[in-house]
């Protein structure tokens, strides 16, 4: 059934239908609506056989999730920004212990200066924590990704973050179709943990590893991560078969002309400029690029859905013969450029590709279709510099009309 829903509500309901055993979270904007919805469902019984725990910090939220997961429950939490960084130690710990917790990250900037609005700096700071990171392009995918995330995480024994742009998605209302309880029950295998704190078969979780074994431990974690791409892709494909719509995947392809998502779209050609991006800016790019295509401009779009593991092969396959790339990045590697740009560059090392980094939408600055078209047109004309901050203001900060998120270019 297609219905009108806020992104956070869609995520909360889908998570509830994945039947978590323990949900534990600490409020932080823009994640709040998700956990508020879940706490209501816990009270009304919509979230059945589930403990909902209100804790006193994110550090405890992740720690409770660790305990719950180790004791044999499907565990879920959600956070953003300062909260994600506050739980950082436990985030690494969960991955190191192979506990398949699923966490929504309502992506938000990291302070100082404190800023509650969207960019990807928070999750990027955790990019090497050993978690899967799956990015939602829209609210339909944000909801669907949670089903894929539980499935992939539990098969791999690797925790998964589902990243959705804060406010831009979490607080936006769209027309969506939620996976039903029956559909999810038919799709998601019951949780069967590989390691449990079991009275009958006692085990030790979280031992120390000395210099003689630490490298090997990390090497095994690395190998597991290499497996992850196939597992994420397989679950995403299964999802598409089961639900009749695409979600997840590794590198996402779009029809050259309609710009609709289409996994059978051809790779880009040698003449094409390819825009690579992840998160909700994809939707704005679809609208921005379609008219350029209609004018005959050779522009293609490729999305990154799985940022961790980074989909090197899938990205290269989607880029095809193209060697000219613009990366739209929502996080900044200070002194260098976009964070995603760095990953794309590493994946394309030795291919002789020209890569432009466009840092856009930091701290909630709206990304406008016109600005995107502008920067793409300049890249096509060979006039774009290597690193650009989209709509950077010079000469002071103008004051927006009151109440409006500033949209002036």
């Amino acid at each position, binding site marked *: 059934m297609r219905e*009108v829903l806020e992104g956070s509500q869609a995520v909360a309901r889908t998570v509830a239908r994945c039947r978590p055993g323990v949900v534990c979270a600490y409020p932080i*904007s823009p994640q709040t609506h998700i956990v508020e919805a879940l706490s209501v469902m816990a009270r009304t019984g919509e979230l059945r056989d589930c403990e909902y725990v209100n804790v006193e910090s994110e550090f405890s939220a992740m720690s409770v999730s660790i305990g719950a997961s180790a004791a044999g429950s499907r565990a879920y939490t959600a956070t953003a920004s300062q909260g994600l960084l506050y739980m950082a130690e436990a985030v690494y710990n969960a991955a190191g212990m192979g506990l398949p917790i699923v966490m929504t990250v309502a992506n938000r900037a990291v302070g100082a200066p404190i800023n*509650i609005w969207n960019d990807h700096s928070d999750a990027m700071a955790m990019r090497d924590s050993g978690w899967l990171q799956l990015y939602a392009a829209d609210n339909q995918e944000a909801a669907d990704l949670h089903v894929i995330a539980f499935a992939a995480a539990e098969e791999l024994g690797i925790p998964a973050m589902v990243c959705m742009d804060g406010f831009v998605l979490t607080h936006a209302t769209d027309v969506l179709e939620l996976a039903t309880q029956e559909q999810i029950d038919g799709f998601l295998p019951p949780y069967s943990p590989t390691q449990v704190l079991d009275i009958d078969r006692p085990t030790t979780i979280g031992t120390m590893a000395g210099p003689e074994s630490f490298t090997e431990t990390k090497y095994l974690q690395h190998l597991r991560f290499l497996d992850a791409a196939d597992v994420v892709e397989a679950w995403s494909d299964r999802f598409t078969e089961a639900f009749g719509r695409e979600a997840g995947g590794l590198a996402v392809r779009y029809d050259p002309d309609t710009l609709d998502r289409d996994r059978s779209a051809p790779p880009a050609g040698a003449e094409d400029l390819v825009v690579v991006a992840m998160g909700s800016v994809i939707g704005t790019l679809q*609208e921005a690029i379609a008219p350029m295509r209609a004018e005959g401009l050779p522009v293609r779009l490729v999305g990154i859905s799985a940022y961790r593991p980074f989909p090197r092969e899938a990205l290269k396959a989607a880029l095809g013969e193209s060697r000219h790339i613009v990366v739209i990045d929502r996080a900044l590697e200070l002194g260098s450029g976009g964070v995603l740009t760095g990953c794309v560059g590493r994946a394309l090392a030795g291919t002789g590709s020209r890569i432009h980094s466009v840092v856009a939408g930091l701290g909630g600055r709206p990304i*406008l279709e016109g600005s995107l078209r502008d920067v793409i047109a300049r890249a096509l004309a060979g006039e774009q510099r290597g690193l650009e901050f989209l709509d950077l203001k010079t000469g002071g900060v103008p004051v927006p*009309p*009151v109440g*409006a998120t500033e949209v002036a270019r």
Partner: protein
Amino acid sequence: MTQIRIHGRGGQGVVTAAEMLARAGFLAGHEVQAIPSFGSERTGAPVVAYCRFADVPLRTREPVLEPDVVLVQDPTLLGPAQPFAGVRPGGLVIVNTTEDAPWVREHAGDGEVDATVVTVPATRISLDTVGLPKPSAAMLGAYAGRADHVTLAAVQQVFRDRFPGRVGEANATAAAVAYAHVRGEPDPRIVPSAEVSHA
């Protein structure tokens, strides 16, 4: 595509209004989207939200820059919020006030803009019906009365769905009163109910 911008103050239900409008638009057969420009606003602070109706699924995430319709839920925002900014030629601006259109243009400081200005005493209507200064239902009722993007029935339906019982009914009445007001029709509360079926 129809793009709507809503101005109001924290606590007036601006974000809810955008969501309810999207729901009503969906009932009227559109693809819809509602985007709050959410912030750290406190009660009384100016707030903006956006809504879009279209025939095809909406993909863009940019805020509405050139609205076809502007709803101003609080007349004290006419100056500071620049409600006429970016309005498309021939657009519609609906303002919650007991004053008239020339007064609105004077206070918005934008007398030249090519737009239809409609006024509706939405706060008074909501105080009379809902008992609270929550003008959203009346504003959306007024919108339904002056454009065919949404119907009064759809607006009433979404409020009844969201607030089952007395509150939903009161909001539905507020919408109907505002609808009649902007169409110059008699107040539905004082005519026999059989006659208010043009919704």
